């Protein structure tokens, strides 16, 4: 399958391991990965903060970058983020129509219909739950709000994780409760956000997990930022990073032995 990868703006600059792992994982599964050059951001931050006019050019750029999917250039688009996929699917069309750009809105909807969050792509489109990964560590999974309630990915990520060889997957108490990130909510209502984060961290710590994983780099940035501040000794890894890891290869340095490669953020 020819799959176009939307890296997401935050992962491109701050967490490149996530899209890297996504690309390497899909290639390992025998697919052709393309990274359309024109991509930048889906516009979610602008939309959710209320800057809908400012979101228009961002959305337009995204739609134009991925519109070739409509001409058969690729078979599908994958996004290693539940919230970006949610914004693409449920907000981009609205943003265009609100600005009177009905044609662009229709294109956005058509592109969105071919866009999948990583676990959706793997389980629903590619029909695979065992991706051949190996990750011998204790891991707990946080289902991010938008993957859970906007996309309804259900237990797809957990099915993928359960199939990972060597993994010690432990249930996260209060898993479905928001971590308190909410984009600019974390700044506009910083204290409330922190109170929610504190409870999430308490639950993460209670599992004894060495790694917290999720399908969204942004939520992981929030929980991971809190865990780092309290020196909790728990790492955060994107779901793709665990799935990309095999017995023979640790392509994005997900395993602790290659710690240096991770912190320097260098290529594999």
């Amino acid at each position: 399958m020819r799959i176009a990868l939307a890296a997401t703006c935050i992962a491109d600059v701050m967490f490149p391991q996530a899209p890297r792992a996504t690309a390497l994982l899909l290639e390992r599964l025998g697919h052709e990965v393309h990274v359309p050059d024109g991509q930048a951001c889906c516009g979610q931050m602008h939309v959710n903060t209320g800057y809908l006019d400012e979101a228009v050019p961002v959305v337009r750029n995204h739609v134009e970058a991925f519109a070739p999917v409509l001409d058969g250039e690729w078979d599908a688009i994958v996004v290693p983020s539940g919230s970006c996929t949610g914004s693409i699917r449920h907000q981009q069309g609205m943003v265009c129509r609100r600005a009177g750009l009905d044609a662009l809105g229709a294109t956005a909807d058509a592109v969105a219909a071919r866009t999948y969050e990583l676990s959706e792509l793997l389980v629903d489109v590619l029909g695979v739950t065992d991706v051949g990964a190996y990750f011998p560590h204790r891991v707990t999974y946080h289902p991010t709000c938008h993957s859970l309630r906007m996309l309804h990915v259900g237990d797809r990520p957990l099915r993928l994780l359960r199939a990972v060889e060597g993994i010690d997957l432990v249930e996260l108490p209060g898993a479905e409760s928001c971590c308190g990130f909410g984009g600019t909510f974390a700044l506009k209502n910083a204290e409330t956000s922190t109170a929610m984060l504190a409870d999430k961290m308490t639950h993460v710590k209670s599992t004894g997990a060495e790694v917290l994983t999720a399908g969204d780099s942004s939520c992981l940035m929030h929980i991971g930022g809190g865990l780092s501040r309290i020196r909790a000794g728990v790492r955060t890894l994107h779901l793709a990073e665990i799935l990309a890891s095999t017995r023979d290869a640790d392509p994005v340095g997900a395993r602790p032995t290659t710690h240096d490669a991770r912190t320097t953020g260098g290529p594999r």
Partner: protein
Amino acid sequence: MSATFLGLPRRRTATAPDGARDVPHPDEPLRWGDDFPTAARRALQDTQLRRNLAHATSTIRAKRAAVVGEVPDWEALRDAGSAIKTDVMARLPELLEELERNVTARGGVVHWARDAAEANRIVLDIVRAKGVDEVVKVKSMATQEIGLNEALAEEGVAAYETDLAELIVQLADDMPSHILVPAIHRNRAEIREIFLERMGDAPPDLSDVPRELAMAARAHLRRKFLSAKVAVSGANFGVADTGTLTVVESEGNGRMCLTLPETLVTVMGIEKVVPSYTDLEVFLQLLPRSSTGERMNPYTSLWTGVTPGDGPQEFHLVLLDNGRTDVLADEVGRAALHCIRCSACLNVCPVYERVGGHAYGSVYPGPIGAILTPQLTKSSGGLSGHHDPNASLPYASTLCGACYEVCPVKIDIPSILVELRAREVDADRGGLPTGWGAAMKAASFVMSDARRFALAGKAAGLGRVVAGKSGRISTLPPPASGWTRSRDLPAPTAQTFRDWWRTEHVAPGAGEGEEDR
């Protein structure tokens, strides 16, 4: 309108600061106190409040989930509830006139109130005409919204709340903090103190055992039920094709008020009308399971006009607008009028669970309050000035979507929150640019072009200098300090994904355009 006794939170050894949780009665029941971030910051410091709320909301969340899970056609019921409400909003005028005709035909008197002042005046005039100076009340959000008790008190009429939780709130001279469980912010030790100090006829040896507290309230209220000549209620539903009014509740105190007094006055928001009696079939399944987590609410009272020799012999229905027609005129916001006041959205909201209801500065707190309150008070879109505390309400959410998921009439609260935020932003356009506005404009410029974004990505790499050897950033200037006060930020990467892809996957000398391996 409905109320349930959820069990009082257990007593804790630590006591809250004296009176810290009292909210003095505001002039505007829909707009009081500080903006949300300020009020929330204060509430978060109250450890007793945090415990009370966490206990109560998690209890009721679990009850709701259990009883909703056993209904095989729950999603179909939600669809039906949503469809009925959409239909009601599309033909509200004709349905209200039909309701008026049928209530009148059955011996009731219908009044129309444009706002709180008119509604309060109508109720006061009825009470005065009966020559009494006290009324008993059924728990009602509509009368909280218009500040009826305070308006009556100013004219020398005492209104006694008979719902146990409303009684606690009233005795403490406090404001409700939850739609269904208005005293959710109080624990049993505090309630004991309130009863001993304020009730007047509480047994001096009263303990904080829930049964003892309930019995004290029962004895206190029984005297009121037997003496009151006039009762005031709200309504959960008003049926247009029969003229029937409905109140659902858990204690039976509402039933006492609806049957014993000679005169009954019901204040109903105009959005509470439903077309036909059979529509109750849908809502009487949706409401109790969503609100109290019960399969069926213990008391469902239905009455139609006046029945000679049975119940109140004089019935008045006050139809309240108070901003609702403005909300109805709003294509996006009008779905907020679909609300049946179950409060499921409050109980699942992670923000409400931490800060409680008073932080919202309105008798309608939580997610539904965050979309309903600013619309009712015209606080959205800068209509009431930039310093209206209600303008901060649409931002009081992480957009986690838990509210939408449980709403029995499928109000898409997150989408309405986003729309209200957009109006706030749009209202600010044209004036002096705000910090947020400038930042968002700049971000839009960068994020709408791959080349500019790639350059910004390289520039962000400079953040590695700030991070130093630790690889983490722990202090940043405002407004980013809001982040770094409690969270680190990883250093931006030395090599963006885009650069890595170019290095690893694009053959040297490959041309412009779509990159491939």
